[in-house]
């Protein structure tokens, strides 16, 4: 039972286990009961509109779901959304972090302003973007377009997923900036100067010194953002409601449609199980990547 760590301390043992047990048990139940219920419902015939039809359904819910093109489209949308937002926030966040590391007048205020979108709640920011920025007739974008003589774009009907990506990226860019800026500050100034003496220009310093230094922070940003981006819901609900058609329906929104618009708890639960599996596959890759990065 007792294991000895490299430090010479022992871990485990009956006494420590008994002290940990209540917390571990509580957390386990906290996780297992919802998970168990979801899996249970996913095998049940359970539609609130058809109260009479209950009972064990076998794999029927899954069969129905997998034969539904909406699932595959939702999965694609989810991955596109996560991928693009990650790309924009990481690249943008890194460049902004380098920018905000430079000394200029009003840097403190500029930093606060750049980080503030993170403190706006998703529903509010989605509403602001929908009604004030991207609105085809009242929006700032259309006003700018018309000022320069272009046709105003009806963002949510012609470029629905792009619009969602812009909104979500706007919200998460400050998070990436915040983490990367903190990491930037621990960059040894001597290293930069040594590189300058070695003949490195600003671009070489960015690629050879800054970027390797930020590698660990970037992997942390990717991991944390991924967890939240897989479950984006409010922004879609407020702006496009998953449409037009299924253009902006991601997995989370699809489950919502099945459970609370179609009242089909069984199929929604099956969708939930698939979402859990998808998240776990992503998480395994991520955890490996981050763990490897943290090691060296």
């Amino acid at each position, binding site marked *: 039972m007792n294991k000895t760590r490299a430090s010479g301390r022992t871990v485990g043992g009956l006494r420590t286990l008994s002290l940990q047990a209540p917390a571990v048990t509580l957390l386990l139940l906290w996780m297992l009961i919802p998970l168990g219920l979801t899996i249970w419902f996913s095998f049940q015939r359970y539609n609130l509109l058809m109260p009479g039809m209950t009972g064990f359904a076998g794999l029927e819910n899954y069969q129905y779901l997998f034969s539904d093109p909406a699932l595959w489209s939702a999965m694609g949308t989810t991955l596109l959304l996560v991928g693009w937002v990650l790309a924009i926030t990481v690249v943008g966040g890194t460049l902004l972090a380098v920018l905000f590391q430079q000394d200029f007048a009003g840097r403190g205020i500029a930093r606060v302003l750049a980080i503030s979108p993170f403190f706006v709640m998703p529903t509010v920011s989605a509403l602001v973007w929908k009604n004030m920025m991207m609105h085809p007739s009242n929006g700032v974008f259309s006003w700018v377009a018309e000022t320069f003589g272009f046709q105003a774009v009806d963002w949510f009907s012609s470029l629905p997923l792009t619009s969602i990506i812009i909104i979500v990226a706007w919200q998460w860019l400050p998070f990436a900036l915040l983490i990367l800026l903190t990491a930037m500050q621990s960059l040894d100034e001597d290293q930069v100067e040594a590189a300058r003496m070695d003949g490195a220009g600003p671009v070489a310093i960015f690629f050879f010194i800054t970027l390797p*230094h930020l590698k660990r922070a970037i992997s942390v940003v990717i991991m944390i953002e991924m967890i939240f981006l897989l479950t984006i819901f409010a922004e879609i609900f407020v702006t496009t409601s998953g449409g037009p058609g299924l253009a902006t329906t991601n997995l989370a929104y699809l489950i919502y449609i099945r459970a609370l618009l179609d009242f089909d708890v069984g199929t929604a639960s099956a969708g939930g199980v698939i979402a859990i599996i998808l998240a776990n596959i992503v998480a395994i890759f991520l955890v490996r990547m981050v763990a490897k990065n943290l090691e060296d």
Partner: protein
Amino acid sequence: MATLELKQITKRFDDTDVIKGIDLEVNDREFVVFVGPSGCGKSTLMRMIAGLESATSGDILINGERINEVGPAHRGLAMVFQSYALYPHMTVEDNMGFSMRLAKVPKEQRRQKVLEAAKILQLEPLLDRKPKALSGGQRQRVAIGRAIVRNPSIFLFDEPLSNLDAALRVQMRIELARLHEELDATMIYVTHDQIEAMTMADKIVVLHDGVVEQMGSPMELYHHPRNRFVAGFIGSPKMNFLDVSLEEAGPEGVRIRLPSGRDCTVPVDGSELAVDSPLELGIRPEHLQLDDQGPLSGEIQVLERLGGQTSLYVQMGELVVTIMADGDVAHRVHDMVRFGFDPMRAHLFNSEGTALPSLHQHPLAGLTRRDHRQAAEGSNQ
């Protein structure tokens, strides 16, 4: 071949003058040490030479060419940083070859040069390691190696040994001196440690508050400090300073009255002295001798036995005087001791802190480390 010349260099940060006009000449293959207390501007001066900091006014010349506007990479200099500043994600080999990689030197040639430098520094077995897996001394050597591969005309060292422990510092000091001979390059070295300055320099530049207090060979600075600051800064333990009164001054010597009431004639030129001007007597601890007939006396407060030597801290009125005595002295704490000194070894400072010129030049004052080297080479043949 590389010489460096500074002409009336100044540096101003916002409202503070950090460097207040420095003239300096560094000869080819010379080992010059900038030494001074923290905040004296020595690191700033080196960074200006390196090009990491711009000079507010004045000229920097390398081999007679003004290089104020030349970027740090193109001055033909290499710098070793106090923190080593190794690139943590690169192996030792990549660290050392980084400048050549930026200059797009072919891989084979790069490896060749890195191996050459690694051989000089005994780094060959470590080339594939990352800096994290190296000890402090090894990191230091890699940092020096990174400088060597650039084949610079002048090496700059910014307090390179201050992060090492005492034993390693002594070892690296010897290694640096050996390296200087082997590479035969011009080197500029910044330190706050006067032992490093004394042991390695051909020429020491003592800086204080942004001005050069004195410039000269280590022995010159030790035996003929130009003022009270240099006298106190060079030498360890620190020189003792006693307030004395002037009895009689002339070009042949100055007669002073010691705090104990006895008189003593110091062989310095006192022809410029005004009557009654306050004087300060400076004597190094190693030049004070315990002597039952000595003119000075006091009570031992602290006794430090180092084996070969014993430091005595003697209370003399308000003042504590340090004496370096033989290792075998039998005295105990609170003993009263008498001690004296050879007037030839004493220094006198006027009210401005300037040393009165000594009448006798010390025979070793002109000696540089280079003279040691040449003598040694001569005897080998």
